[in-house]
């Protein structure tokens, strides 16, 4: 399954080649053209397959290949590795995790002082990860230098696994933000559409929507859709707390009306809702204005591009391992497929 393959693949922002190669292999038969640009975006064109009047609409659908991670900044005399974060990671989720370093996936751990040696008051504080190191077991600097290099990218180590096969069809794995979106886009390329579909597997989203910015400039699309794995905060709440869960697992794809990077084009939001209703696909809104997506960069490209974002709800994003429902995943594929098919003849007004 492509989601499993992509979730297990390793590709921190700026180092997306391995993920890109896997995707290209998976879609090569379905596309007419592809190119890799200066940022490492993979841009695939699947031309319109239906007869229609005039030029088919150019629709850019983007999913980012990169994941949050770490980068080695120094090799210390004791063989440990100093690191910096790439993308937004909560310090509190990093302690006592397994990581893989560099292209050769050298295993390592992020250790910390034993609880016995930490004062009770200190235990209540978030750890200061600027002092933390990665331990790859190397005895000294020389030994470490034989295994890793400064500048090596580091991913969390977590393996994809399906947890429930019947109802919610849950699966856990790393980097569902945004390999879930990439997998949806790979699935979408299996079908034909009445529009020119530019499938953009983008780079460097987590460090500032940078891949999508240049890809959108190049493609110059009429319409843009970002596919995401988005925040799902449906954990139990206190008794009279009726606040937003942002999204809920199993309730269908989440449509963004606004996030910190853009305001969705209302025509596209309405189109998605109409398609969901017509095809009996469950959907929900992303019920918060938080985070940013490639849509933030795409909608400002050149003279502006009507844009929307659709996401697979994913619990625990930006942490080492996340969890989603394959029902939501399938429904996202169905919803976007329906929307792309309905874009024949242009954007509804």
């Amino acid at each position, binding site marked *: 399954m492509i989601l499993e393959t992509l979730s297990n693949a390793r590709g921190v922002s700026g180092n997306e080649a391995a993920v890109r190669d896997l995707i290209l292999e998976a879609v090569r038969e379905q596309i007419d053209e592809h190119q890799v640009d200066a940022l490492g975006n993979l841009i695939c064109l699947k031309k319109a397959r239906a007869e229609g009047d005039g030029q088919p609409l150019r629709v850019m659908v983007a999913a980012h290949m990169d994941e949050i991670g770490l980068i080695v900044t120094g090799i210390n005399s004791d063989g440990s590795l100093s690191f910096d974060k790439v993308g937004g990671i909560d310090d509190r989720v990093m302690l006592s995790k397994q990581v893989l370093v560099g292209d050769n996936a050298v295993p390592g751990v992020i250790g910390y002082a034993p609880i016995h040696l930490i004062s009770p008051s200190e235990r209540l504080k978030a750890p200061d990860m600027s002092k933390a190191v990665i331990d790859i077991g190397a005895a000294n600097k020389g030994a470490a230098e034989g295994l890793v290099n400064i500048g090596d990218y580091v991913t969390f180590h977590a393996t994809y696994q399906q947890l429930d096969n019947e109802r919610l069809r849950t699966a856990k794995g790393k980097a569902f933000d945004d390999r879930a979106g990439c997998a949806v886009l790979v699935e979408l390329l299996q079908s034909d559409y009445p529009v020119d579909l530019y499938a953009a597997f983008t780079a460097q989203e987590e460090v500032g929507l940078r891949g999508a910015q240049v890809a959108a400039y190049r493609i110059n699309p009429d319409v843009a859709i970002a596919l995401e794995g988005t925040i799902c905060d449906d954990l139990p709440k206190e008794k009279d707390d*009726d*606040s*937003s869960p942002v999204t809920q697992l199993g309730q269908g794809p989440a449509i963004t*009306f*606004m996030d910190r990077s*853009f*305001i*969705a*084009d209302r025509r596209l*939001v309405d189109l998605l809702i109409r398609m969901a209703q017509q095809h009996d696909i469950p959907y929900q*809104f992303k*019920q*918060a*204005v938080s985070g940013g997506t490639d849509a933030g960069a795409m*909608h*400002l490209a*050149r*003279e*502006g*591009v*009507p844009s929307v974002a659709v996401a697979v709800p994913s619990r625990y994003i930006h942490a080492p391992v996340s969890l989603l429902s394959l029902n939501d995943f399938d429904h996202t594929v169905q919803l976007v497929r329906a929307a792309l098919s309905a874009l024949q003849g242009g954007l509804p007004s």
Partner: protein
Amino acid sequence: MKELIRQLVEAYGPSGHEGQIRALIEEQVAPHVDDVRTDAMGNLIALKRGRPEAGGGGKSVMVAAHMDEIGLVVTYIDEKGFLRFAPTGGVSPMTLVGSRVRFANGASGVIGWEKWMRPEGATSRPDLSELYIDVGATSRDDAPVGVGDAAGFVRPFEDLGQRLIAKSMDNRISCAVAMQALFDLGDSPNDLYFCFTAQEEVGTRGAVTASYGIDPDLGLAVDVTLVGDTPKARPMAVSLGEGPAIKIMDSGMLAHPGVVRWMMETADALGIPYQREVLQGGSTDARSIQLSRAGVPSGCLSIPCRYVHTPSEMVDYGDVQQAVSLLVELLGQEIAL
């Protein structure tokens, strides 16, 4: 001009939801321009073409006044029908408790605070997460609006004679200034693009795509600026009633020195008083225009305004009228930087 101002400031149009205010402006400017269009971001772009006989050396000039206003957008409706929201633009929770809002479909509501009349409310400031909109619904199902719908503030226009108060003086007063200048302008050697931009309050976004599309020789934003003339205000050498301000710098950009000089010399020649503006905090569409493509010399004509980003913003009518006169003169002449 006050009737025009009243219509504009009372209209609905939070960022990303500019349809109603755009229609209002379009209807009035259309008879005065050669072309009018709306781009993908919802910017209204009205072109008054240059007339060669009005003098040679015409430039293409983008005049940008944003038409969106700060507002709220519904993020969640709880079981009892109360709406939680996020701000569109720089909304201070201080200004919200007890405020009235209105949605595009006409539904109205009032903003409540969880801590109102509770002991902790007496000693703390509201946080956005503690506020909600009450639209008179009794459950999630009978709420007259949905998640993603946006609300604007409701306040009537008040004419105090010399001083005017309204919601959304930021930046409808500048829309009024740009429109009045357009109405008053004769033939100009310049191609004048009057842009009523969208989504300024969420990061000067509309101006990004509008300026890319127009690719002007020169950019001029019209917007409000802060003042230092109220009790214990942050020191700032701009006051209400001492003329429009010519921006030298704000926290998003440095105006092109040649544009600043051109604006000041034009004002001097006309005998219009003006103030030199160095703004700490805030920026305008000019910052986006300046960075468009290979760069555009840009500046900003500012209307001094008190209580910016509250539902009761105050401007001076004299400043407004002088801004119109200055803008007419700036746009009607041959421009040499």
